[in-house]
């Protein structure tokens, strides 16, 4: 009787954890990215086609700062959508509260910046807590509609200009006379850029810490199966309210920085369209991941600004009208990309890398 020598069981390639070349460096990559972004204003490289003018020109820095702000906003919104599974359609309200709060307190009440900022962020957080306490009594789609309705009230309040505070349709330019000198003027755009970078870093740090904490695990549990969390004896309502309040506070802080960068408030930031674009940013980037929403927000804002220039460029203008007209609308392009993303890469950009590595591994010839 012969024993058949069985070949040793082969572990499939994809099951052995691969230690990539970048394994050691990886934890430091965010830090490297932060340093690169922080020293970016010192470079004078011009990237034709990507930015108008050199990187350290005020126009480019302002665009970059806005992109960074929206990266932070998207990361904050992801705390609701990607990490807790709450579909809020009213996140623009807290951002707008930050923008208009700061603007009104500085321009109309004449407060110094730090007081205005402190009051606004506190006020925005309290507003989020109050409205969240009402809205969270509903779940799912009804929650989405209630938050949408609350945000609509904000939009109406701003547009109708009650008490002459908001400037209505015209918007409210920021009175810069009382601001610190370092934050005023075209030459100081670089300081605002650093401020935006600091805001983004803060949001990423907070979201990272929260999602790593025991509370964050409860939030992830709520996203996956709310009933189960309730059965475990934890109160879903409270945890959701904490996430909602925190996200609202972060958004109003973003509004404070945004009003400084843009130098005023305009009513379009209160529209439901802004919330919808936050949703688009998060889904394009990858909900529930650390860098996906940030990337999505930065890229979305960049495209939103640059596609306008692209749409009026000669290359597009020379196309037949059927093509050139839709292409000159950034929202058409972004909306279409978004729909395609929902179908064909549901994990967003953050989910692309694992998918591509699967693909390359499958395509690689077997040894």
């Amino acid at each position, binding site marked *: 009787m012969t024993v058949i020598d069985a070949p040793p069981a082969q572990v499939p390639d994809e099951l052995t954890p691969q230690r990539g070349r970048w394994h050691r460096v990886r934890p430091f990559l965010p830090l490297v990215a932060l340093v690169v972004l922080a020293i970016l204003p010192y470079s004078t490289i011009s990237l034709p086609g990507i930015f108008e003018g050199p990187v350290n020109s005020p126009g480019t820095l302002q665009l970059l700062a806005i992109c960074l702000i929206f990266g932070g906003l998207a990361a904050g919104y992801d705390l609701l959508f990607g990490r807790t599974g709450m579909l809020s359609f009213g996140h623009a309200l807290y951002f707008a509260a930050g923008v208009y709060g700061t603007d009104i307190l500085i321009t109309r009440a004449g407060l110094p910046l730090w007081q205005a900022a402190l009051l606004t962020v506190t006020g925005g957080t309290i507003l989020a807590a109050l409205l969240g306490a009402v809205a969270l009594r509903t*779940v799912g789609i009804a929650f989405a509609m*209630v938050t949408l309705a609350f945000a609509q009230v904000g939009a109406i309040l701003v547009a109708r200009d*009650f008490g002459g505070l908001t400037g209505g349709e015209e918007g409210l330019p920021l009175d810069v006379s009382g601001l610190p000198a370092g934050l005023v003027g075209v030459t100081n755009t670089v300081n605002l850029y650093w401020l935006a970078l600091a805001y983004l870093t803060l949001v990423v740090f907070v979201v990272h810490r929260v999602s790593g904490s025991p509370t964050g695990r409860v939030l992830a549990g709520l996203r996956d199966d709310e009933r189960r969390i309730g059965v475990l004896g934890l109160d879903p309502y409270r945890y959701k309210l904490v996430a909602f309040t925190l996200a609202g506070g972060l958004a109003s802080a973003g509004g404070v920085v945004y009003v400084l960068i843009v130098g005023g408030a305009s009513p379009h930031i209160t529209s439901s369209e802004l919330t919808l674009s936050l949703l688009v940013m998060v889904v394009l980037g990858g909900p529930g991941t650390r860098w996906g929403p940030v990337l999505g927000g930065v890229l979305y804002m960049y495209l939103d600004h640059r596609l306008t220039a692209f749409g009026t460029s000669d290359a597009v203008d020379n196309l037949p009208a059927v093509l050139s007209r839709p292409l000159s609308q950034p929202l058409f392009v972004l909306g279409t990309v*978004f*729909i395609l993303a929902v*179908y064909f890469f549901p994990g967003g950009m953050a989910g692309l890398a694992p998918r591509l590595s699967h693909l390359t591994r499958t395509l690689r010839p077997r040894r």
Partner: protein
Amino acid sequence: MGTVILLALTGLGLAALYFLVASGLSLVFGLADVLNFAHGLFLGVGAYGTWWAAGNLPGAGPDGFGFVLAVAFGVAAGTLVAILVELVLIRPLYSRTIEQVLVTVGLSLAGVALLQATWGADARPFPRPDWTREVTGILGAQVPNGGLLLIIAAVLVLGAILAFLRWTRYGLVIRAGVENREMVTALGIDVRKAFTLVFAIGGAAAALAGALGGVYFGTVSPGQGGSLLIFAFIVVVIGGMGSVVGSAYAAVVVGLVQQFVNYYGTSGLGDICVVGLLAVVLLLRPQGIAGKVATA
């Protein structure tokens, strides 16, 4: 007295507009669990379809029978778009609620941008028969005919939808599907055909709202659907998801509250009162006036 009647009738006109948008939304949500953000797009297609037909379609025009033809063209266009959206975009994502919402969000952004790209962002004057510009004296109030037209259309649509739901086989399937979709499927009925049908009905009603809303406001612009849509959502939630009658009641309440408070209070206060009403209804009766409990 005249003012009160005028406000009541214009409020009802607004309510009719809300009802036309909300009835489809409510049915779609009740049956297929899709929160349809693209509903405003159907409205825009209806309005622009009518506008285009009145100027370009042979036989159609801004007056008399030509106007009826133009509106019919707009409604047909809206219905077609709704059916296509359901077949191509919504159906592959069957029972994945969040993805469906996301797709309709993307569609509303891209669709409105497309309308804007084709016909420009500015409001266009809407072709309308001369008699809709005039007013009718009712009990001492001078009521614009455009509003009366909306009320009549909404009552007709309400009657037609109710009759359809009550007395036809597909109506029965839809009613049963709103109650319990799994059971209908288990009985061997292809409920997805009913989805398409509900989308078509909703699209037609929304397109009609777009066309008649154009008559009422006198202009048509790409963003019109979006602002109406939010109030239509509120009407749907207050009325109860999936209930057409509930939507009708809620539309009347919302329209009247908005009109009266906006007149007697500050302009804009009525809109805020409506949202307050929504909050109160949700806290006291989360399932709405008449409907199933609103859950995801």
